[in-house]
């Protein structure tokens, strides 16, 4: 049995989430150690995939097809390409960090918590590797359940309301997706008489009637727009982040937003390239609105977690700008931005989790002057904040740079003219980011924060590994680029 | 000969409808009971005219007599306690109810006339003069192609019997 099998990759978290319920794990320590060990095994196994992947050989797609529901043409088929590999590696990394970080945040029901986390990981990996539309949709829905429990049980504030809001928003979105999938499925059957859900057949078959293609495109776009918060559909994100515990919002921001982005690329762009050209300017404008709108709103927020939530919306705006550019440079920029945003936002939420753990408040006006008391956290936060602003030699910069360069080269006339509005984000992001840092770390220290304890070891490990990756991708972006760049280039060459 | 049939049919027609109206409009419940019995007898007359003599006979026995007796027992058991005569209730509900039932009547006539395009041919067939005894026919039918419903029916009757005994039996105080 060849060692690199995608289904094994998805089954591993499922098994470990099941095993957690054995009576053997009776103490909290055992549960936590098992969770950390299995997460790191999963990450190492994923690194093996990364090492063995060379984008040019055809068999690197590691596609596996198992019969599932034969009459309906639905098969349990998984496959791999550059973008899904990068997203998967990011996923397992962020999950490992979140699990390690959730030592102090989760006080009760640890067993149930870690099994939910692993279930979520399996579902997300499933989405990235699914090669069958039905499977894609199933994993898409599956990842909602654990996330709902994670927010509503261990959250704070009005957690049930925001968990429900998160669920309803994504459900609403996925209804559109289901309609589009079934629409394609039916049209494909009517025209070719072959009943199949496989992405290659349904997706790449492109003489559907024009109206069906438009509707399917819009349907998919709405579903992924909800997930990758596009501005009008974004109001679930801040409330979900504010009420979720820190490790969960790390996972939420680090990974779940990538689902939307990955979906946009894999489904909207690869299935309907001709329609995407028509909608390119709309996507671009949405990106601009995302950037400017979210930055302005973030500036006024009083809760730092809500600010970081809005910052991740403005980061994904840059992703949309890169995507709207519709050329290889823009696309590479968009995918790079996705990866770097995953790292940055998980780092930021980790920091906020640490601060909340010590000061039990997230209101900027109440915090102040923590720099002197928590120097370690202060310096690491500085690096992450500067990465999110887009300082060169840190991971935020290449993504932003390539997206804007791509937008400038795009053959769509309007996109070229409005790219400067997107660049306004370059000024707006530091405004609220540094304001937050100044509010939390600078200024005079309140006496009740005098004696908070320093950074714990496991928090230091998490933060340093995140910072290390941010600096690595920033200094030498080629390391990641050579994985997904060839795939994007040959897509745009046709 | 045909005129006699028509006369009988007309007589039965009026009898049934008037007695049915009587059931609805009667003030006291016992008067409506009597009208109902008359209506049932009229219906059995129609059965006979349609050559379904066994059905007519069973109609007489079943409805004419037993249901009436059953009903009278119920009336006696129930009506002693309250003195109000529960006639027709002139509330919103009954008005709308009347309209609905008139609407349904229109629907029936509409479908009968096949969407208003006149009577379909099948409805125009007139009465067969030769009468024949249908009892033997229905009996053989009953025990050949409809044997399963017959057995099920017996089972239902048994259950009904038990159920009625149980519900009526308990003195809830």
């Amino acid at each position, binding site marked *: 049995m060849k060692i690199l099998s995608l289904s094994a990759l998805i089954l591993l978290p499922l098994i470990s989430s099941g095993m957690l319920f054995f009576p053997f794990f009776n103490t909290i320590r055992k549960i936590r150690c098992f969770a950390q060990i299995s997460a790191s095994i999963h990450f190492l196994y994923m690194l093996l995939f990364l090492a063995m992947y060379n984008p040019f050989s055809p068999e690197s797609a590691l596609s596996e097809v198992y019969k599932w529901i034969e009459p309906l043409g639905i098969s349990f088929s998984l496959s791999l390409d550059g973008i899904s590999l990068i997203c998967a590696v990011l996923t397992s990394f962020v999950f490992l960090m979140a699990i390690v970080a959730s030592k102090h945040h989760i006080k009760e029901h640890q067993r149930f918590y870690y099994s939910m986390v692993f279930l979520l990981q399996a579902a997300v990996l499933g989405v990235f590797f699914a090669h069958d539309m039905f499977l894609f949709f199933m994993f898409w829905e599956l990842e909602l359940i654990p996330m709902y429990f994670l927010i509503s049980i261990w959250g704070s504030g009005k957690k049930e309301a925001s968990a429900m809001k998160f669920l309803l928003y994504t459900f609403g979105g996925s209804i559109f997706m289901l309609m589009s999938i079934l629409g394609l499925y039916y049209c494909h059957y009517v025209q070719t008489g072959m009943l199949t859900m496989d992405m290659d057949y349904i997706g790449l078959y492109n003489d559907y009637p024009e109206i069906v293609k438009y509707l399917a495109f819009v349907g998919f776009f709405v579903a992924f727009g909800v997930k990758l918060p596009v501005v009008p559909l974004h109001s679930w994100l801040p409330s979900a982040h504010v009420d979720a515990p820190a490790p969960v919002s790390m996972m939420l921001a680090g990974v779940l937003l990538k689902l939307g982005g990955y979906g946009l690329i894999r489904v909207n762009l690869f299935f309907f390239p001709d329609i995407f050209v028509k909608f390119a300017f709309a996507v671009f404008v949405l990106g601009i609105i995302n950037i400017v709108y979210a930055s302005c709103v973030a500036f006024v927020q009083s809760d730092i977690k809500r600010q970081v939530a809005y910052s991740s919306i403005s980061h994904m705006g840059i992703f949309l700008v890169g995507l709207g550019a519709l050329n290889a440079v823009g696309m590479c920029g968009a995918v790079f931005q996705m990866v770097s945003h995953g790292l940055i936002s998980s780092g930021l939420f980790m920091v906020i989790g640490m601060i909340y753990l010590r000061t039990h408040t997230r209101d900027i006006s109440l915090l102040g002057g923590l720099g002197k008391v928590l120097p370690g956290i202060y310096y690491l936060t500085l690096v992450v904040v500067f990465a999110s602003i887009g300082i060169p030699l840190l991971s935020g910069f290449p993504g932003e740079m390539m997206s804007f360069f791509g937008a400038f080269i795009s053959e769509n006339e309007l996109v070229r003219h409005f790219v400067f509005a997107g660049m306004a984000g370059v000024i707006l992001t530091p405004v609220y980011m540094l304001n937050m840092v100044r509010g939390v770390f600078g200024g005079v220290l309140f006496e009740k924060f005098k004696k908070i304890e320093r950074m714990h070891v496991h928090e230091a490990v998490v933060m340093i590994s995140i910072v290390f990756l941010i600096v690595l991708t920033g200094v030498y972006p080629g390391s990641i680029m050579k994985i997904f760049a060839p795939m994007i280039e040959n897509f745009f060459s046709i | 000969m045909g005129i006699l*049939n028509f006369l009988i049919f007309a007589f039965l027609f009026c009898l049934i409808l008037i007695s049915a109206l009587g059931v609805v409009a009667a003030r006291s419940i016992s008067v409506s009971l009597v009208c109902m019995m008359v209506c049932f007898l009229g219906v059995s007359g129609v059965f006979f005219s349609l050559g379904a003599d066994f*059905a007519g006979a069973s109609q007489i026995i079943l409805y004419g007599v037993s249901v009436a007796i059953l009903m009278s027992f119920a009336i006696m058991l129930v009506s002693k306690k309250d003195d109000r005569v529960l006639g027709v209730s002139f509330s919103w509900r009954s008005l709308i109810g009347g309209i609905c039932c008139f609407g349904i009547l229109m629907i029936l006539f509409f479908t009968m006339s096949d969407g208003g395009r006149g009577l379909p041919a099948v409805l125009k067939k007139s009465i067969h003069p030769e009468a024949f005894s249908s009892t033997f026919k229905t009996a053989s039918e009953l025990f050949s192609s409809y044997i399963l419903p017959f057995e099920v029916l017996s089972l239902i009757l048994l259950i009904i019997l038990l159920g009625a005994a149980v519900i009526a039996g308990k003195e809830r105080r």
Partner: protein
Amino acid sequence: MLEVSLVHYIILSALLFCIGLCCVMVSRNLLRIFMGIELMLNAVNINLAAFAYFCDGMVLGGQVFILFVMAISVCEMAIGLVIVVALSRHSENIDVNSQDVLEDKQ
């Protein structure tokens, strides 16, 4: 003109059915409602008999069915009356309008 054809019977059963329906909807006394139901069932029987006679030829399936309808109506009547008796014992009156236990009070 004067011979009796199938359409007359159908008109008769339709009228009878509507009168029964009207009785069910209008009356306040539960017993009268049961009478209305009986009328409606008989209307159905007339229809069955008529179609059996006119269209069914020698098979007479309709008449068999009449028996079944009668049996079922008797069962229904029995149970109905028992319920009425139990109801009247429970709430002293069998006025339909007053039985609003199911009503959503707020």
